[in-house]
């Protein structure tokens, strides 16, 4: 397991989580893109040491890298790509409705807070 990979995963996760906690939707979208990368990198790192490309008949099994996590990573990349697009569409709709791309206040929470305040 290479130290570089571990560090990259750590930094991506940190920055991604920071962005996701933001109130601006475009930052949340970027945050999830980074988090998705971090998770996929963690998956490939879990595969063990890198080696030759895992092609049948072209490399000996002892030198190849582990193909299973690579297949899993591909699937995960496709899924996170699609979900990023969906989030973007949702952010666009929010922009249409309210004119900004901030996460709105929770109305129910505000109502309860208002009741407390009035009392």
């Amino acid at each position, binding site marked *: *397991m290479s130290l570089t990979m571990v560090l990259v995963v750590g930094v991506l996760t940190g920055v991604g989580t920071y962005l*996701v906690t933001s109130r601006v939707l475009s930052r949340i979208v970027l945050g999830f893109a980074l988090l998705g990368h971090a*998770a996929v990198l963690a998956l490939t790192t879990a595969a063990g040491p890198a080696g030759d490309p895992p092609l049948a008949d072209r490399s000996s099994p002892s030198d190849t890298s582990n193909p299973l996590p690579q297949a899993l990573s591909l699937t995960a990349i496709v899924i996170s790509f699609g979900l990023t697009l*969906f989030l973007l569409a949702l952010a666009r709709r929010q922009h249409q409705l309210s004119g900004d791309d901030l996460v709105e206040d929770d109305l129910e929470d505000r109502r309860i807070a208002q009741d407390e305040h009035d009392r």
Partner: protein
Amino acid sequence: MSALVSLCVVVPLLGAMITLGLRTVGRLRDVITLGSLAATSVMAIVLLVHVEANDTVVVRVGEWAPQLGIVLVADMFAVLVLGVAVLTITIVELFAMGQRRSASGADPTIVGPMLLVLTAGVTLSILTGDLFTLFVAFELMLVASYVLLTHQGRAGQVRSGMTYVVINLFASTLFLFGVAFVYAATGTVNMAELAERIPELSNGVRWGIGLWFLVVFGTKAAMFPLFSWLPDSYPTAPTTITAVFAGLLTKVGVYVMIRFHVLTEMDQLGPVILVIAGFTMLVGVAGALAQDDMKRILSFHIVSQIGYMLMGLGLFSVAGVAGAIIFIVHQIPVKTVLFLVGGLVETERGTSSLERAGGLIAKRPWIAALFALPALSLAGLPPFSGFVAKLALLDAGVADGSTIIVVAALVASALTSLSMVKIWLGVFWGSGDDHPEVALPERVGSGPGRLMFAATGAALALTLTIAVVAGPLWSMSERAATELLDGDVYVDTVLGDTVLEAGDS
């Protein structure tokens, strides 16, 4: 038989593909949607009967070795939940068809196909035998639920949909990290292999993996303290969609939690899960008491009921897990029928707010009857299915000596009845609109149609059937729990005689 297992996933997906292509022909789309759901239900029931009489059915997709390829496993636990889940979705689709017929025009093209994708996600999550396919199945289910929740694009839906999407997306990312951790620790994602290898890991790593997946699955299952997204987002969706979500999504979360944590022998997490279960029950029901809208009350009850299932899991005994299983089976149709009644009330009165939808018992006694029976069942009164399920759990709790959780369960149960009474007083008794100065929204069409009543009645019949066949159901749940706790059967049937050479995995 093995073909049926794959078809349970493939048929709804095929139906979704076809209906997505048919953008204009309304009637044909309805027929195909309902047809593929009905076909899946029939297959699920055939599987249930077959597995009950014989043994677990294992399918190796593409004849790959189970360690490398995808395996689908239809064991007792899977087919029990599968049967009830698919039947419930079919009934909701019937209700939705009725609603579309009595409402004028506006027929969103996306709902049918997405409901089918959701079904495929649910069946795949239930049947899958490896952790990564489970991740994919969850995504399938969640993507469909994101679209169903927000497809109307109203302001409230986009706001609460955003919370829902962000929280579930975060949980999915954690899931993927979890898969990476598990793979790094054990070198496999196959559940049967995990059942053998995780108990051999060092104590710290086992705690880490167990807690990590408790958070991941717990977010989907809306357990305390990760439930805040649920009561916010569910009530904003259209009734039929809320009914499916309420009945299924959280239960699938609990289902995979039971499967993963029991198979990998995470007994040490028991006390943690029991504490969480107690808080989930009480906080959920307290939230329900504070609400004044039928759909919001019911949404908080989803959270509260999850606590009971967690209680069964936390006991890690055959009786406890069997109790949790029978609770899931009881809960899926009961929750759905309550939300469908909420839909009937809304169609009738134009609102589900307790203050404004009053006096329904005089005008529509049938709706009152359709509400009263499942509400009593939810509260756990005999002779309904809720009583059977709760009694099983309490029995298991007493046998285990966990008095505190038993007391918490009883208190939560009493409070549940109280909030059901609150709905009854608000919606069915009273004089109706106390605030005539606020005009009710335009009535949708001409009140609930016959098909909507029939569908709600069918869902109710399903819950009553569960109470009637409680005896056989209990022995099936016990068998399922025994198979899970004693993982050898599962491991042997899934892996069979396949042994990979050393260094090959």
